[in-house]
């Protein structure tokens, strides 16, 4: 153990000024997490982001590198989140004919799913006595993580807690979506996909794609539109409160 930390502090001295180590470790951890997830048949519970977070956390624990130091190094990766969110316009634009053809269906889905998603989580957490910080971090839980972190920060939540809650929500939606659809006897792939995208963003969309292409397309739309609308509405509502 001590030789390991000696070795890392030695290597550390050489790398400290350059973000190579942190960036490399993040890419490597995510790659390993993707492999593990694939070995498990891409089951939603083996979420690559969550696995990579655990791998990096264990690594930081073992090498006694403080999180702030890691984050400074991995900032290159963190920065790319902004451009990636901007690029979410591309899949939305590709589906514009679907949006137009099913505008009313999508509008109803958002009108119901967006407020129910926020209020159900916030309401349950409030009733069960969660702290206000946790409740605020929970509010954007159904929104795709790149947009959710911004909302969380704006309304006074914790970005980092929001990311974990968003992933947990995605995993839950991906697992429960098809089960609830069966229980409610709903087999229209448009309805199932759209709902899974609104309730559980990208992780739900990945699961909806396994149902079929239509479900996947509607899920992607649900995710994108719910993300943009929540980013517009939630901070405005909080400003009025």
């Amino acid at each position: 153990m001590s030789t390991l930390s000696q070795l890392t502090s030695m290597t550390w001295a050489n790398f400290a000024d350059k973000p190579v180590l942190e960036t490399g470790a993040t890419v490597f951890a995510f790659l390993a997490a993707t492999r593990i997830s694939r070995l498990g048949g891409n089951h939603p519970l083996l979420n690559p982001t969550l696995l990579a977070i655990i791998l990096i956390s264990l690594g930081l624990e073992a090498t006694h590198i403080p999180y702030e130091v890691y984050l400074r190094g991995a900032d290159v990766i963190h920065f790319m989140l902004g451009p990636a969110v901007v690029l979410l316009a591309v899949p939305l634009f590709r589906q514009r004919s679907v949006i137009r053809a099913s505008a009313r269906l999508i509008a109803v889905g958002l009108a119901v799913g967006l407020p129910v998603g926020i209020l159900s989580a916030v309401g349950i957490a409030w009733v069960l006595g969660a702290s206000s910080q946790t409740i605020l971090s929970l509010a954007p839980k159904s929104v795709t993580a790149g947009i959710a972190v911004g909302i969380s920060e704006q309304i006074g939540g914790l970005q980092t807690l929001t990311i974990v809650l968003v992933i947990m929500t995605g995993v839950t939606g991906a697992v429960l979506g098809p089960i609830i659809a069966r229980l409610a006897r709903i087999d229209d792939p448009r309805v199932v996909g759209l709902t899974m995208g609104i309730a559980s963003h990208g992780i739900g969309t990945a699961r909806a794609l396994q149902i079929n292409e239509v479900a996947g397309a509607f899920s992607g739309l649900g995710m994108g539109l719910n993300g943009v609308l929540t980013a517009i509405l939630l901070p405005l509502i909080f400003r009025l409160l």
Partner: protein
Amino acid sequence: MLEQIARVLCWLCIGEIAARSGLLPFRAPVTGLMLLYAELAVRGKLPDDLGILADRLLQFLGMLFVPAGVGVIAYLDVLKNEAMPILTAVIGGTAITLFVTMVVVSRLGIAIAKEPGQLEGAAGDVNS
């Protein structure tokens, strides 16, 4: 390709200016997303390179959350102390959202979709 990277960064920059000056109450990437969509809608077509750039970057979108997500190690005690409300809110809330949305959309949404009516204008706004 460089042109498309410049395009994305340009909309992101405008979003950043709008956010910092208090002009718009949204985070820079959200404004950037809307501006890029608006630009594509005006052009009417997607440049090939932009499509490739989006596919490549969004393919590993999940990796981009890792650095910020690792920060949760500082809040493990919050997760532990509030495990019950958090898990109930996440699992219960998501189950309620899925059930209510699916049922309402399949009853009301499809009925409305079949019957052309007043909702058309309101629904159209979602696109813009």
